[in-house]
């Protein structure tokens, strides 16, 4: 399902245009459209899931609908659709003193950061838009684009609360990228490749070949990575840039309607990406936990998705259980705990590979 195969396939059905630039553009646009669909559907499903998970944990029923009339469908399945319609029809407000250009640009910056990373995410053995040879590096690099958007949003709103949120998130996201990145270095050290598919192929042959169980250091690295990405996606207990009860809404205080929803679209897309990287990098990607058990081609998507869904559920579980940390405590954890442990991890994995590898 990569762009190359699509390009060849298109060339073979329209031989007259084989190899032309137009076909290449079409071959690129088709997966992009599909990806956009993935992002949109992902957000719709995840907002619904989050509502239901929250309701389950809080002893409520969550969105429900029954009987005749205007309601959110069976079990509230249409709740997110209703939300989306509401957001689309809302008035588009740009504050008078805001920096208009940057204000409009910010949600798109964040969205682009989340959207382009999905290109390199493998969903199955053959289901990946582009298997770069630097796939994991690309995801890390593009993932950090989002923080620019958040700072822009915080700055351009011309609101003190937004500025607080923007500055907090700049500090937070940039800090937490370091332990996350250092944990990923362990994957690269073990597999010797940056390609996402290459990393997954290395972990073939049952759950004890997964990188999380490769050695004690990588086991720790998985948890450091996961906690760091929870912070990177601004989820509770690290949601200080939004911090509803302190900063009102943080960097998106002044946003409304569809512009606001782009922040959420990208938050959920980001969650998908970071969980996919955790699943691919540490939990064997699309491999079955038991070799030969539903390990055929089509089941790859099932295994990958179930791992991603589980990790996303854990993130939601965090959100509805934990209080929020304070900004300096957050930084302490990052710089005084995670960073040293990550460095020791890298050292440890090096020695482990030398001795046992």
């Amino acid at each position, binding site marked *: 399902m990569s762009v190359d195969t699509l390009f060849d396939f298109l060339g073979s059905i329209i031989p007259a245009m084989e190899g032309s630039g137009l076909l290449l553009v079409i071959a690129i646009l088709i997966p992009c459209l599909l990806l956009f669909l993935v992002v949109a559907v992902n957000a719709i499903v995840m907002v619904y899931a989050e509502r239901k998970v929250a309701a389950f944990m809080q*002893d409520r029923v969550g969105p429900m609908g029954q009987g005749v009339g205007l309601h959110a469908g069976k079990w509230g399945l249409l709740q997110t659709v209703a939300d989306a319609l509401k957001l689309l029809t809302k008035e588009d407000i740009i504050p008078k003193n805001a920096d208009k250009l940057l204000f409009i640009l910010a949600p798109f910056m964040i969205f682009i950061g989340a959207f382009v990373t999905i290109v390199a995410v493998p969903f199955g053995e053959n289901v990946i838009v582009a298997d770069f040879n630097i796939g994991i590096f690309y995801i890390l690099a593009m993932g950090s684009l989002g923080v620019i958007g958040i700072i822009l949003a915080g700055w351009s709103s011309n609101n*003190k609360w937004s500025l607080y949120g923007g500055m907090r998130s700049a500090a937070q996201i940039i800090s937490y990228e370091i332990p996350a990145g250092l944990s990923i270095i362990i994957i690269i050290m073990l597999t010797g490749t940056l390609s996402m598919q290459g990393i997954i192929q290395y972990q073939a042959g049952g759950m004890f070949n997964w990188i999380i169980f490769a050695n004690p250091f990588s086991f720790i690295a998985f948890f450091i990575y996961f906690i760091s990405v929870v912070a990177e996606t601004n989820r509770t*207990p690290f949601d200080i840039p939004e911090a509803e009860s302190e900063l009102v809404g943080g960097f998106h205080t002044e946003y409304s309607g569809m512009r606001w929803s782009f922040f959420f679209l990208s938050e959920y897309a980001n969650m998908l990406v970071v969980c996919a990287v955790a699943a691919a990098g540490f939990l064997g990607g699309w491999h079955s936990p038991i070799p030969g058990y539903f390990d055929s081609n089509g089941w790859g998507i099932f295994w990958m998705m179930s791992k991603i869904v589980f990790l996303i559920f854990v993130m939601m579980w965090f959100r509805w259980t934990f209080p*929020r*940390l304070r900004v300096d*405590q957050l930084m302490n954890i990052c710089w005084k705990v995670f960073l040293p442990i990550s460095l020791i991890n890298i050292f440890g994995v090096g020695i482990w590979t030398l001795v046992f590898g």
Partner: protein
Amino acid sequence: MGVVHGEEMVLNIGPQHPSTHGVLRLKVKTDGEIISEITPVIGYLHRCFEKHCENMTYDQVIPFTDRCDYLAAMANNFGYVVAVEELMELKVPEKVEYIRVIMAELQRIASHLLALGVYGLDIGAFTPFLFMLRDRERILDMFEMTCGARLLYNYMWVGGVSHDLPKGFVETAFQFLDYFEPQIEEYNKLLTYNKIFIERTADIGVLPQDVAISYGVSGPNLRASGVKWDLRRNDTYSIYEKFDFDVCIGDGGQGTLGDCWDRYYVRMLEVKESVKILRQALAQMPKDGDVHQALPKKIRPPKGSIYSRTETPRGDLGFYIESDGSPIPTRVKMRSPAFTALSVLGELAGGWMMSDVISILGSLDIVLGEIDR
């Protein structure tokens, strides 16, 4: 370690802000995240309660007391009627006293549950808030069962209460208590002993005993600083001397004595004590008796004045009433416990960070309706 100072910025927290617990404005001087000065600006909810009282008969004042501390309306009713009865030297039947204590203690649980839950919300924990509101709902159901109202009751009258307890109330109350007591442990597991919650509240906003006393802070906020002072014990009113309960004080369990965690935990302990009082009161209450028996035909206290105080969930609620012998009070003054709690905020919050200010404000459990009156 050197400290970098930047330009100071004045930030308005409120009047519209999710964590100011009402319409409160805090003028905050900040240097980045650190707060150097904090000035509460109040009065957005001022409704001339005290002036209104000078134009109404004594019983017409009661619904207004509901609206002062709208989260503990029963306790406010209680405070006012106790003051008027003391002024009139009126003796109420024993059953009425029991009903009043039951209602006041149920109200204390309801009010503390809201305070604790919203405090969790201030810190960022959503789920405990909904758990506590779920249980508070059952108390409100019981109030509704008794007097038809869920928030503003106008239940306690001078000389009695508006309605007798309905059939099945005692059983419902016991059922609730049996259900509720284990829930307290669940709250503790979920929120009180959560590591992040302790990190956010322990050692934050320490209120020393002498400062608390000099500002006139009362109620759970004072007890959290280690002062054993509860009007139900120290200046007993109604029939509180009949019950066996402890006055809970803070002990600096997770940090310094008088920090936010102590203020939170004292409320949690008080909920347990209220359950204890309720069990005794429900068991001892006389089965029959007319709650309207002692209602005076006309409330016309003799010439004179009275200052009477009661222990509401927020602390020491005082009513000063001056009478000239007519059916209309000459002057009613309410001493608000939340007002004194708010006035100590400037002392507590200086030097802490933005997030701590929210956490300190939440731990004081203020109700703006009572502060502005």
